[in-house]
């Protein structure tokens, strides 16, 4: 069952468009990663998923129902952890207990707070009494997480949870979040640059750029400059002399998006004539990653400055005998290129 259904939402801050999403579904109890450069709209998307703001156009469905901020269904079930560690000006105990008091759920407060602090690796005896200014950045972020975990939320949204903290805290935060999923089936959406999250933890990853979703990863986004070549085609010349041919874009669009799912991979030398054809690129494998499902492999191929990520079946990888460093050729059709 999809816990989130987003279709055709546009979000503006004043006159500036910050998000334009056509379609996202997030299954319950999954872990979804969110990556993209600063300013790509990750935090905004999380705020919308957290029902802290209402999208300017369109609506988000939660458990199949269109939902708004402050509504009963999400007030006590969806929670967001901010990027900067933020606590209220009160003791650790009072910070953690706040959400419970709001819900008038006041049984066994001490032991529940204690368990939440244990979950994030903080000793309740020592930390419960401390004031908000008596904590390091990492400790504060862990307390903030504990304040949310104690509520057993169905959805946990994390905005770069490990960005501003020390390594120990980062590890404990990840551990606690995963525990949430184990214990009560929480859905996690995590905006992060952390490779451990992205490659070891997440079921799937969403790529955001300029407020839009790129299904096939951002490595396949190519910036200009674009020149018209001798044969009259628009192309970009890479440093190693290779050339990427592109169709003519619409007015104002400068970013070319390749679609790795429509590319063909082959070993060089199989067809010597292909080597210098305009619709072939040569590069080498840099990374192989087995997805959690065990069937598909993500293959990162470096072509000049690009990193093209292809998803290949495991047996195809075995057939081509791919390993990091192996030279490969990629054939593409310029007509598959989209402009942005």
């Amino acid at each position: 069952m999809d816990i989130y259904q987003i279709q055709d939402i546009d979000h503006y801050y004043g006159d500036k468009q910050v998000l334009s999403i056509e379609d996202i579904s997030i299954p319950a109890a999954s872990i979804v990663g969110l990556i993209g450069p600063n300013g790509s709209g990750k935090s905004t998307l999380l705020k919308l998923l957290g029902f802290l703001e209402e999208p300017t156009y369109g609506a988000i469905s939660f458990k199949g129902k269109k939902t708004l901020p402050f509504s009963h269904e999400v007030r006590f079930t969806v929670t967001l952890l901010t990027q900067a560690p933020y606590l209220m000006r009160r003791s650790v105990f009072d910070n953690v207990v706040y959400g419970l008091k709001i819900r008038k759920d006041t049984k066994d407060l001490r032991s529940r707070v204690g368990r939440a602090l244990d979950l994030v690796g903080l000793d309740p005896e020592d930390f419960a009494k401390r004031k908000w200014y008596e904590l390091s950045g990492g400790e504060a972020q862990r307390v903030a997480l504990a304040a949310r975990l104690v509520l057993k939320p169905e959805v946990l949204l994390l905005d770069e949870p490990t960005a501003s903290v020390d390594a120990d805290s980062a590890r404990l935060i990840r551990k606690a979040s995963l525990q949430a999923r184990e214990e009560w089936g929480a859905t996690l959406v995590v905006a992060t640059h952390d490779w451990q999250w992205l490659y070891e933890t997440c079921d799937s990853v969403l790529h955001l750029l300029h407020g839009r979703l790129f299904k096939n990863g951002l490595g396949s986004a190519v910036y200009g400059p674009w020149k018209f070549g001798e044969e009259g085609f628009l192309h970009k010349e890479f440093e190693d002399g290779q050339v990427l041919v592109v169709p003519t874009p619409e007015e104002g669009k400068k970013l070319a998006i390749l679609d790795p799912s429509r590319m063909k991979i082959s070993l060089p030398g199989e067809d010597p004539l292909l080597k210098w054809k305009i619709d072939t690129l040569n590069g080498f494998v840099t990374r192989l990653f087995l997805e959690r499902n065990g069937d598909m492999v993500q293959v990162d191929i470096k072509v000049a400055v690009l990193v093209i990520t292809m998803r290949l079946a495991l047996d195809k990888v075995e057939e081509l005998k791919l390993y990091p460093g192996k030279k490969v050729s990629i054939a593409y059709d310029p007509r598959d290129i989209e402009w942005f």
Partner: protein
Amino acid sequence: MDFIQEGFFQAVALLRNRDPATYSAISVTLRASGMAMVVSLLLGLPLGYLLGYFDFRFKKQIRIVVDTLLSLPTVFIGLVVYALLTRNGPLGETGLLFTIPGIAVGQAILALPIVIALTATAVEASDRNLRITLMSLGANRFQIAKSTLWEVRLGLLAAAVTATGRVLTEVGISLMVGGNIKWHTRTITTAIALETSKGEFGMGIALGLVLLLIALTVNISLAGLRRRI
């Protein structure tokens, strides 16, 4: 200059001997100011929160108006309140003229813009992440308001201290609206005005020192409060 020194000794004497006129003035001052502060805080804190927290169409203009009201001269307020409370005025039937509650009304008008402006500033200065955190933990709009005000409590305390200082020391309103009636509406400040107009400068200094002592006591307790919250 002698009268300043004289004033010191007189101040001690007045307090030690429990001079009835002085204690009456102290009582009137405390009652009028106390009432005024309660009203202005009850009204001003929520209004200041609304002004600081929300974005709405005429927000900038309203803020400018509130800030301008901070410059209202007390004699002007006193005159306006007199016009309201005079027998044939719109609120004449209330019989508040020349009474302590009448003074409190005028002083509340003095204090209200201070409380609103400083509360709005404190709320505006609060961290963006506070709202996100409160909403994420499940607070509704009313709980957000309550918790935000608690978070900026030191700013609110500053607002209360500033307004109290202004109200304790004003003369124009007490004089116009209270009438400086001995035993009934003579505050410390109107008593000072009277004594100095009679040439009794020493007495004026003495009463001024008494007022300072009261202000000191109030602020010491507020400082104690500030440490604990």
